[in-house]
């Protein structure tokens, strides 16, 4: 209950502030050309990137999974690799190599290259799971391969494709670092600018309200689109892969295309990092500061991961073991955070704590609370998957053997859900270690993390000085990528038919 309430603080703040501002002033703050321009920027970029990542993600997934493209396994690894490069590091790489990369075109290219794996990965997983017999039936009925793909395969990819594209949209609405470096203002960057000029001005909150509406719109769209169709099947289907398409003369041009994507998405940031580490004039290796930022990042991320996962347990427990409208409402309320960018959570917590509980203001505890709000959904989803698979009958057996409820939880349930707790904590750890906006606003005095140090150097155009932090940020993100890849394949193969 307390967990759910905490998760709702930012939303309550935005809503109550909107009420306090009043309709007249709110209209005055929103009905101005700047808001229209921001709305246009935000919506066009989100739409363009969602479309582009969808096309790119599906095309690459089909190429890797369904054709005789040479070196498919290698390509798969390389195509997922951009997930390990935070978008703001990618933005830095492009801007620092070529100043002309900016505005809509620059933002579009960099964001698409950073986020297409969010579509690619689930589509690949879905393609692997499809029953080839369905397609074979279509062929036997005289459909061409192209037509079969359009009428049989594509509809089955729909949930993965939509889910991935909407995730891209939500990431993009919350993106601050990359878009700020690329000089393409959206609501998130504009809120940060207002915060920088007024700290807690009503203009910033009015914009936050619009941003939250956009995020909620995407979230609801996803729920709706996902909810009304079923793609389940009985039985595991044919336990063999689909017949690969023979590329023939297209083979090498397509290899060249995939190579181009990898070079742009992975090669450019890698080259930029190596270059700035090697030749940047402001490159220095302040080992003490790097170590301190790394240690702070790890301490914050470990604490945040533990707190978030522990907070997820009672929420999931209620939702799974005591099903009912109240427990579902509590669980769902934590999902709202999916629609709250770090900037809104940061703004909300700064103002609410200053007004209501000044003692926790500017403490590490508050920052950890912000992380918990932001990343609780990730922990809830993972832990829930684990608890669903822990049969309650084992609890009953323990009870019948005279074991008390606490001891049962410790000796029976905990060992069963431990792997999912671990996976949830790992996901949260990795999300926290690259978090930028909430950390910038809430970190205690004198605290510097890898992300904030990287930001302070790269926004002052000290590209060389930013490089070691960028490298550490990438290294910290690598395990997340591997974990996500594993999880994706496990969740597909591990589901009993």
């Amino acid at each position, binding site marked *: 209950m307390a967990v759910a309430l905490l998760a709702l603080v930012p939303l309550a703040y935005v809503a109550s502030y909107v009420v306090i501002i009043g309709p007249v002033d709110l209209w005055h703050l929103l009905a*101005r*050309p*700047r808001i229209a*321009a921001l709305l246009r920027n935000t919506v066009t970029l989100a739409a363009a990137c969602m479309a582009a990542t969808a096309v790119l993600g599906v095309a690459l997934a089909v190429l890797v999974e369904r054709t005789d493209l040479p070196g498919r396994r290698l390509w798969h690894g390389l195509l997922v690799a951009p997930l390990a490069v935070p978008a703001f590091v990618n933005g830095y790489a492009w801007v620092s190599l070529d*100043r002309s990369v900016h505005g809509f075109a620059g933002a579009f290219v960099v964001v698409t290259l950073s986020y297409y794996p969010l579509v690619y990965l689930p589509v690949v997983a879905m393609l692997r799971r499809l029953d080839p017999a369905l397609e074979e039936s279509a062929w036997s009925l005289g459909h061409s391969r192209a037509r079969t793909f359009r009428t049989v395969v594509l509809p089955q990819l729909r949930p993965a494709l939509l889910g991935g594209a909407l995730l891209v949209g939500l990431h993009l609405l919350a993106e601050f670092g990359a878009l*700020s*470096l690329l*000089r393409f*203002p959206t609501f998130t960057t*504009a809120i940060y*600018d*207002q*915060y*920088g*000029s*007024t*700290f*807690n*001005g009503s*203009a910033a909150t009015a914009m936050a309200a619009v941003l939250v509406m956009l995020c909620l719109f995407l979230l609801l769209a996803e729920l709706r689109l996902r909810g009304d169709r079923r793609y389940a099947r009985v039985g595991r289907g044919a336990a063999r892969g689909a017949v690969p398409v023979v590329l023939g003369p297209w083979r090498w041009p397509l290899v060249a295309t995939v190579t181009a994507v990898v070079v742009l998405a992975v090669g450019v940031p890698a080259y930029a990092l190596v270059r700035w580490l090697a030749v940047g*004039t402001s490159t220095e290796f302040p080992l003490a500061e790097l170590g*301190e930022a790394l*240690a*702070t990042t790890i*301490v914050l991320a470990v*604490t945040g991961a533990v707190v978030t996962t522990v907070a997820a347990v009672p929420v999931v427990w209620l939702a799974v073991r005591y099903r009912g409208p109240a427990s579902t409402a509590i669980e769902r309320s934590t999902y709202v955070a999916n629609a709250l960018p770090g900037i809104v959570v940061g703004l909300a917590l700064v*103002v609410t704590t*200053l007004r209501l509980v*000044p003692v926790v*203001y*500017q403490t*590490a505890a508050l920052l950890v609370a912000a992380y918990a709000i932001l990343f609780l959904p990730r922990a809830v989803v993972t832990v829930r998957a684990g608890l669903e698979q822990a049969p309650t009958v084992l609890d009953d057996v323990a009870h019948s053997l005279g074991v008390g409820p606490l001891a049962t939880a410790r000796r029976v349930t905990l060992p069963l859900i431990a792997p999912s707790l671990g996976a949830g904590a790992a996901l949260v750890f990795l999300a926290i270690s690259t978090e930028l906006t909430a950390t910038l606003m809430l970190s*205690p*005095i*004198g*605290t510097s993390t890898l992300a904030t140090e990287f930001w*302070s150097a790269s*926004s*002052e*155009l000290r590209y060389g000085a930013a490089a070691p932090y960028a490298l550490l940020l990438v290294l910290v993100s690598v395990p997340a990528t591997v974990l996500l890849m594993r999880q994706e394949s496990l969740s597909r193969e591990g589901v009993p038919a």
Partner: protein
Amino acid sequence: MTTRPRRSTLRPSAALAATVLTASTLSGCGLLGSPDLVIYNAQHEELLDEIVPLFEEESGLDVELRSGKDLEMANQIVEEGEDSPADVFLTENSPAMSIVDNAGLFAELPADATAPIPEQYVPAEHTWTGFLARSTVAMYNTESMTEADMPASLLDFADPEWEGRVAFSPTGADFQAIVSAVLELEGEEATRAWLEGLEANGVIVQNNLVVMQSVDSGEVDAGIAYHYYWYRDREENGTDSDSSALHFFGDQDPGAFLSISGAGILASSEHQEAAEEFVTWLTGTDAQQAMAESYALEYPLNPDATLNPAVKPFDELEPPEVDVSSLNGPQVTDLMTEAGLL
């Protein structure tokens, strides 16, 4: 079963070890422990990182910096009120000092702290003091422009002939301070018209370094910024300043506005003595000379300190007369929000 007793004895000690370890790491990272002096710093972090260790060495005090932007931190201090952890507030520009001053949150500075600074850079009530100054300039690309092509006044950049040719950073406290000077000198109507013209003409970038880069690369013909960005680049390696030059407006034009970096002590501070020691040190000759010799190239306000002669001399700037305590930050933010620049 045999492992159970061992586990139960191990666990508390492991937990204890983990706690101790975490606590020591936390204090090592500055997450715990209380410093002798907390500075809310909106001046360039790089400059403070250079001079604060000198003060720490001299005084033996442990100083903690929290860095941010002028108006963000000023509004933050006002919002924090009596509970503010800040002991000293340093800004890049004076409008942020006025916000805190108008909220009555500054303590009066000791006479030693204000004595070395000429009186026009200290408000009458001695609630804060200037410690550095920066001159507004226009930069221009030397391949597409000559000094003669530059306008006589900063206000001329709002003219249609400058459409798409002038870069500036409206989110920066520096530009906002320049606007506050225009507001003070020309009045609200003229300022509004000027901002609307700039909004129509300007190429908006995220900070003054990008203004300089945009001018130097020829992306725009001119840019509005402060003097030191260009001089710093010149001193370093000149890569972003070799195809550009500075245009000083002079002649008491708003474009020759001299912006004052301020230092003040919060009345709510529990470290008054340490705070007074720091501000007195900051305006004293040693610190002023150290800042003058640093990478910063801002003008020291203590007349005993001498700046690198490569920088245009302080007494040749011909700035307009502006009362340091009268610049209005909030009204500027409102006007800029209205003009669609924020």
